[in-house]
């Protein structure tokens, strides 16, 4: 086994899909650029040709719509949005069209498009280059939302997303790109079989994350472990449709729930996780109130001073747990 980075894992998923599925093609801005999407798309245009790897005009709306339309016609397109913020131009094609195409026509047609949307935060990029809007999309019935946090999932869930007969938004966070792991051989897994996964076992508190938040939770929990705190860490992986069953079992065991989310607090994914657990457990199960660590409810600031306060990190999570809980 060869150690692989998260970004190389994405690249290897593209390579696998393009090699094995002639109906797969990729479009989006920056695909012929050597720097636009990290090295996650590197040289794909040279290997598979500019017919299948299409760098597009600055038209998020039309190009996303085109990917949706091509998917209705038997192709498996992947539309890449190097920053989620710009994808908002394409909301009609995603929310009104792709998400509803199967339902509106009684299942006669479907739109198996994959929308790769990249979260690209920090670096003083400010309010319009740093958003994590996964919770928005998780609100919409008909669109699956996938957030890989591990290197293995970065590769495997991209493959599952593209092979899924439903529209999928696959969200990767550039802060995860340097993670490394030894990957198992590729085994195609139906996206339906992908549920929240326990990454670390413990019996005192259940910490739930998605994407980069899972990494934070995992790192914080490892450090807490040396202080004697036994945290169980769950990675959501697929946030819509959301299956809470594994987490529910965990909370019944640990009796404490903390959710870490890279989005805002109000109406966010953390609220959804907490609600779906609380409404399904007996009253008085929890020793402590369910809690969440999210972004503060303000746009991403540009100043590095503000940024330090804005984003959750390992130290903040450890401090929060030490301050809020008595095990």
């Amino acid at each position: 086994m060869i150690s692989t980075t998260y970004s190389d894992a994405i690249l290897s998923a593209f390579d696998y899909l393009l090699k094995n599925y002639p109906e797969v093609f990729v479009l989006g801005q920056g695909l012929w650029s050597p720097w636009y999407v990290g090295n996650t798309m590197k040289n794909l245009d040279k290997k598979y040709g500019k017919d299948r790897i299409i760098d597009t005009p600055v038209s998020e709306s039309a190009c996303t719509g085109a990917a949706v339309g091509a998917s209705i016609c038997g192709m498996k397109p992947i539309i890449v949005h190097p920053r989620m913020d710009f994808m908002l131009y394409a909301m009609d094609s995603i929310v009104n069209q792709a998400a509803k195409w199967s339902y509106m026509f009684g299942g006669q047609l479907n739109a198996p498009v994959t929308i790769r949307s990249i979260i690209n935060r920090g670096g003083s990029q400010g309010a319009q280059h740093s958003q994590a809007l996964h919770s928005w999309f998780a609100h919409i019935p008909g669109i699956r939302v996938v957030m890989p946090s591990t290197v293995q999932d970065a590769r495997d869930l991209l493959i599952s997303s593209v092979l899924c007969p439903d529209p999928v938004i696959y969200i990767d966070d550039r802060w995860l790109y340097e993670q490394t792991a030894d990957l198992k051989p590729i085994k195609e897994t139906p996206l339906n079989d992908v549920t929240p996964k326990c990454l670390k076992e413990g019996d005192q508190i259940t910490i739930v994350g998605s994407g980069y938040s899972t990494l934070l939770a995992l790192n914080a929990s490892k450090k807490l472990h040396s202080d004697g705190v036994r945290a169980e860490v769950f990675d959501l992986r697929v946030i819509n449709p959301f299956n809470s069953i594994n987490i529910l079992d965990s909370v019944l065991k640990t009796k404490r729930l903390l959710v870490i989310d890279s989005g805002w607090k109000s109406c966010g994914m953390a609220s959804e996780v907490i609600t779906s657990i609380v409404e399904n457990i007996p009253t008085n199960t929890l020793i402590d109130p369910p809690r969440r660590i999210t972004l503060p409810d303000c746009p991403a600031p540009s100043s590095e001073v503000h940024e330090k306060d804005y984003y959750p990190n390992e130290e903040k999570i450890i401090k929060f747990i030490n301050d809020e809980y008595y095990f």
Partner: protein
Amino acid sequence: MISDGGKKVLEDPNYIFAKLNISQIEHSYLEDFLMSMSVIRAAEIKIAEAKKNGLIKGPVHLGVGQEAIAVGVSKNLRNTDRIFGAHRSHSHVLGVDNDLHKLFAEVLGKNTGFSSGMGGSMHLASKSKGFLGSVPIVTGTVPLAVGAGLASKLQKSGDIAISYLGDGATEEGVFHESLNFARVSNIPILFVVENNLFSSHMHMSLRQPLNTINRFAKAHEIETKLVDGNDVVEIYRTSSEFIRRMRLKPEPYLIEAITYRWFGHVDWREDIDVGVARSKKDLLNWKKRDPIKRLSDAMINKKIWTIEKQHNLDLKVDELIHANWEKALHDDFPDRKSLLDNVYKYD
């Protein structure tokens, strides 16, 4: 052919229109056009009545008066082509799939409809005939149709995409993005703009500096032609030539067809003098440009059709409407248990 000088008058209710030039068109084609337009007309009038008397629950956008466009274009299509419509698309789906029962069942919300009763008038599809969907978000399907054309190009199938849209849709930004992307990627798509001069209640003159939109095609280097949207033969000839070329060499084209809807924006009312710049006088003038009567007259004039044959055709259409409507009325609604079906393709 509409000359440059004709452009100004084509959208004028007082425009003096010429007799249809039906030369060099097979008689069987002309009869097909007549039948197809008559069926669409009668179906929509039936739907208007049923909406008025409350049998149909959802909104219906009727295109009575505009039948020639879909009928003329559809004659060039095959089942593997990819057609997308919008909110006013009864004619677009019937143009390629004349299953009246399925249309009636759908507008009545019955499970035997085009979309299994899940769509109603505004969400129609007939996959086996290449009609891949119509939706009521203005311009919503235009980029999808571009993608369908792109798929066809990648699949090297020789199939083409058709995007039906109205004049209002040309005011959305994504229309312009779609034209640009189609051109720069050489996508085999025919944009068919049905310019009926109104978006809801608003006349073109209140929304755009000109009453025609083909300038947008020119801006994106897309070959275009302005045609009389109430002349089925002209529409057939123009689309036939464009589609022939698209199948040989993938490229986008745009047809602008000037027409007029006899009903208001939605449902059965005529919307006379309740909208802006839509008068009874204008409507009566436009009705003189009836695409069905013009074709019938031209055929009778050329002695390839008779008043008796026309009468028989009308009777046949009435029977078709009646039989299919009654059948649809007696069909079942979707099972209540199916509410959550097909949100996802696999559960």
